[in-house]
Every structure is written in structure tokens, then in C-alpha cells.
């Protein structure tokens, strides 16, 4: 951390949440979220059964400046109190990313402060450090609606990808399963709720990639299996839904645990001397209590400490983008005003 506190405005517009936040990092390690606002576009996309990129971009431009003004107001720091502005520069839906990034550039120019173009995945990767000073290196499981990967976080801007999904993200599988079972949207919380009263052993669903070498995931086969089993039922009763949700969730948990076990072994190979290795879980799917429980058991068995930020920091938010901005700015990293928004942007490149 730098010799003085850094106060940063964070902007996030890469999917269907318009978010603005002000975060502050002190030299003594204290981190504060001064404001943290998220406006979901959920209602605008609901009729389409998924996020429509052009609709998302149109919604971002209409509300972002108001969200920023409110975030500055709530933070109580004033515009003159900002040391920089951090905006998501990708990966994501390009129209929305451009709205946020250009807005960030304009604010950086107008206030004569540095711009930090943040990789959305780095926002997730570092979000745990906004809560507590987890030391590098650590293992990261990033599971959300758009991403599913295992990474070794060696430092700010220094990531090694151990594995990722070959098809759907885990959150996508939750959403599609929820849709199939008529459980509503977003699928994560809906499946988790339905699964509470369900028998996870009733339906024998596949565990794609289980036992295979490496750390890659695959969820499309699981999703297809759910569809076939649902279609085979003469009628779908509430108990069937609950049992299927529970069976699906258990299958996802088994896959995540197996892949994490492989990643832990790889991580240990590289950092054998590390006394207390940490597995950080981030992304919206990390909110699932059953998955957290399964990962906690794995960590206990493998001698890892499980760390997961609170739910609000797991789903898309601007506080984590602001925090990534602080981490980068503290290292002297900022970006010129001509940087491009990127639809694709792997974290290890």
C-alpha cells in the first residue's frame, strides 16, 4: 500500500448490473467501502429469458452518471477527495463495457486523476483482499454466471490459470436448470432454495470431468442430463423439482470439489513451503451455502483455509473494481485515455 490513503471511484458495467462505489485503502492495511451501489437491470431482460446486450448497454448509459453522483455523495469524500477512477475495461458485453470505460475516462480527464482500466476477473480475484489482507499467493475458484475457472493468484496482475470450463459456466448451469424446472430467475438462489427439501440421491446425474487429470470443468452434459430426466417424468411435482434441484446441486458440488482437489495438489507442487495455503472462492455461485460447505470440508481435509467474501462482494459490484484500482494504483499502475474496451480478456494474458 502507498504511504497515504487512496480513495478510488469504481465503475462496473460489464453485464446487467450498473454499479458505482467508492473504496479507500489506508497505508496501515485498513480497507473501507465508503459507498457501494448496484442497480440491477433484471426486469429489463426478464421477458427475453437472458441478458440482451443492446438492452443492457442502453440501460447503462441512462443510469450510470446518476449512480456515480449518488456513490460520491454517499461516500462523503467529494469529487476532490478522489485519487483515481477505476472502470471495468473487460471482459464482458462490449457495449456496456464501453459505456463504463468511456465514462471513467471522462471523469479521469475532468478531475485530472489517474484512470485504471480493470479486468473484471481481477476484480473478483482480488475482492477477498478488500475484506481481509489475504497474502499472495493463493488459490482462486471463480464461479459465476459468466465464468468458471481455477487460478493461482501470485500477485496483482500476476495470474496463472490452472483450469476453466470447456463449455458453460457453473452459474449458467444453475440458471438453465432453474429454467428447466420452472424455478424462476436468477437460477442460483432458486435452485438452492428448492434443493433444501430435496433428496440429492434420487436422480443419478453425471459428474462431468470427475477424476480426470487437470482442473478443467464441463457443465453442458449435466444440464442435458437434467433435461432428459425431467422429460422422462410423467409430470413434474414439487417434490420432483426439489429432488432434481438437490441432485443437480450435489453433482455440481462433487465436480467443483474434485477439480479444486486437483488444483490444490498443483498449487502445493509450486508452493510446497507455504504453511497455510488459502483457497478463495469468489463469484455469484460462491453464495451457495451447500457448495461452500462442500468446499470447506475439502479445505479441512487438504489443510487449506477457505476464504470467501460476503455475498454482496461475490456478485457483480463496483467496490471490487475500485479495490482492484487501489491495488494497481498503489503499485504505480494506471492506464492512458486511449485504452480499449475488451469483450474477451483472459486474466493470465
Amino acid at each position, binding site marked *: 500500500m502507498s504511504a497515504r490513503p487512496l480513495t478510488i471511484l469504481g465503475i462496473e458495467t460489464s453485464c446487467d448490473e450498473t454499479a458505482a462505489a467508492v473504496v479507500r485503502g489506508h497505508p496501515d492495511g485498513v480497507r473501507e467501502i465508503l459507498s457501494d451501489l448496484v442497480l440491477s437491470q433484471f426486469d429489463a431482460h426478464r*421477458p*427475453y*429469458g437472458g441478458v*440482451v446486450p*443492446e*438492452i443492457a*448497454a*442502453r440501460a447503462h*448509459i*441512462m443510469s*450510470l*452518471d*446518476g449512480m*456515480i*453522483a449518488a456513490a460520491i455523495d454517499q461516500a462523503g469524500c467529494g*469529487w476532490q477527495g478522489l485519487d483515481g477512477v477505476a472502470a471495468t475495461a473487460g471482459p464482458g458485453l*462490449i*457495449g456496456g463495457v*464501453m*459505456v*463504463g*470505460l*468511456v*465514462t*471513467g*475516462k*471522462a*471523469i479521469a*480527464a*475532468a*478531475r485530472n486523476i489517474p484512470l485504471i482500466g480493470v479486468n473484471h476477473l481481477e476484480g473478483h480475484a482480488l475482492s477477498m483482499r478488500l475484506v481481509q489482507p489475504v497474502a499472495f499467493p493463493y488459490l482462486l475458484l471463480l464461479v459465476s454466471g459468466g465464468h468458471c475457472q481455477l487460478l493461482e493468484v501470485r500477485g496483482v496482475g500476476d495470474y496463472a490459470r490452472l483450469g476453466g470450463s470447456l463449455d458453460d459456466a457453473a452459474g449458467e448451469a444453475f440458471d438453465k436448470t432453474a429454467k428447466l424446472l420452472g424455478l424462476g430467475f436468477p437460477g442460483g438462489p432458486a435452485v438452492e432454495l428448492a434443493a433444501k427439501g430435496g433428496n440429492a440421491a434420487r436422480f443419478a446425474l453425471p459428474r462431468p470431468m470427475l477424476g480426470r487429470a487437470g482442473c478443467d470443468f464441463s457443465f453442458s452434459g449435466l444440464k442435458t442430463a437434467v433435461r432428459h430426466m425431467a422429460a422422462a417424468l410423467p409430470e413434474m411435482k414439487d417434490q420432483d423439482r426439489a429432488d432434481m434441484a438437490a441432485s443437480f446441486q450435489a453433482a455440481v458440488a462433487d465436480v467443483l470439489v474434485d477439480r479444486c482437489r486437483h488444483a490444490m495438489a498443483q498449487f502445493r507442487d509450486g508452493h510446497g513451503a507455504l504453511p497455510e495455503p488459502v483457497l478463495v472462492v469468489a463469484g455469484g455461485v460462491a453464495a451457495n451455502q451447500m457448495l461452500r460447505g462442500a468446499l470447506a470440508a475439502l479445505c479441512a481435509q487438504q489443510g487449506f483455509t477457505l476464504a470467501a467474501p460476503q455475498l454482496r462482494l461475490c456478485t457483480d459490484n463496483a467496490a471490487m473494481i475500485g479495490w482492484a484500482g487501489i491495488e494497481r494504483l498503489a503499485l504505480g499502475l494506471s492506464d*492512458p*485515455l*486511449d*485504452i*480499449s*474496451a475488451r469483450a474477451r480478456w483472459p486474466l493470465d494474458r
Partner: protein
Amino acid sequence: MRVLALDTCLDACSVAIWQDGVITAREWRPMQRGHAEALLPMMEDIRARAGLDYADFDRLAVSIGPGSFAGVRVGLAAARGICVARGLPLVGVNTLELLAAAIADEGPVGVAIDARNDQVYLQCFLRGDALCPPGLLTHSQAAAVICETGAALHLVGSGAALLVGLCPANIRTSHLDLLPDAALLAALAATRDAGPGSAIAPLYLRAPDAKLPASAS
């Protein structure tokens, strides 16, 4: 009065500074893409040349479309961002009106922008005053609107060549490659009412390309 104007709606990117009736700095570049990268450095460049800080401006001006969806948003995001960060008011001007400002005719002027899919964005003006609202029209619909204006019309813009064959013989065309210029935008904006940036919305004229699932309709 000092106005900072910017346009990114079509195949050009431009910025200009207007001070009490005089353009004191201007940058205009043709480009089909790259507005989001070029805009802020261009603005910083002319601002430095004019020796002004953002706090020195009385208002900003931006073209709000019609145009490329992404281009419209790049300009508006930049304008709204500066306005919110500096507490400045904003003027939004429709792109067709801005293009018409380049034509100093006594008679009626029609501005047509090629909107692809056999459509144009069209609006007609008489000495700067709109004769009809801006619209997204098929070529034949646009020709009908042009016929209704009666008098010999001067048709300009990237859509003019697409319409001329459908229009009466007394239609005159020129400026087929006409593109917006922030210098004209700044001068126009100086005469308008400025308001909060968050009140200035894009003028897309075209719905998002999204189909409702069959089960929902």
C-alpha cells in the same frame, strides 16, 4: 460563454471549443471505428491548446443520434461523465439537425443518413427549423415525406443517393458524404437551453435487435 462540444455518432470523431462566437480549437477526424479510444485524447489535446480547464466551460454539447448505437453512447458517456464530475450542464442536439447546420440554404433541406436494411434516418428543415420530426423510414416512406414538403428540396447526407431516384425531378442533391462537425455543434448549443447531463438521452430511433421468446409473446 465557453462551450466544449463533441460528436461520435457517425463515421467521424470531432471535438471543438467555442468561445463567445469564435471556434478557438477544433479537431476533426474521419473514422469508422475507434471513437472510444480517440475521443478523450482529442479532447485533452484541444483543451490544452486553448489553455482551458474543464472548470472553465459553461456547458458541454453532444450529438445524441441518430447514428451508430455504440457511437451515440460513446459521445454521451463522455459528455455525461464530464458533466457529473464538474457540475456542468449539457446540451444534446440531434445528428440530423447538426448535419443540416452545415447547409446554408434559404429553401428546404432534407437530411438523410443511410440506416441500412433499406432504411434511412430522415428529417427536413427550413432555415434550421424542423419541418417534420426525425424518423427511421424505408426508402419509399422517406420519398413520400420528401414529396410532402412540396417545394424543391435540397437533399444531403449519406442516404441522399439512395432516395433521389424515388423523388420528384426537382429534388437537388449534394454533400453525399456529409459528416457531423463538433464546431457547428458548439455554435448551435450556445443558443440552446442547457440542462443536467442525466436528462440527455440517446435518440436511437431504432429498437434493440432482440426477439422475445415464442413462449412469452
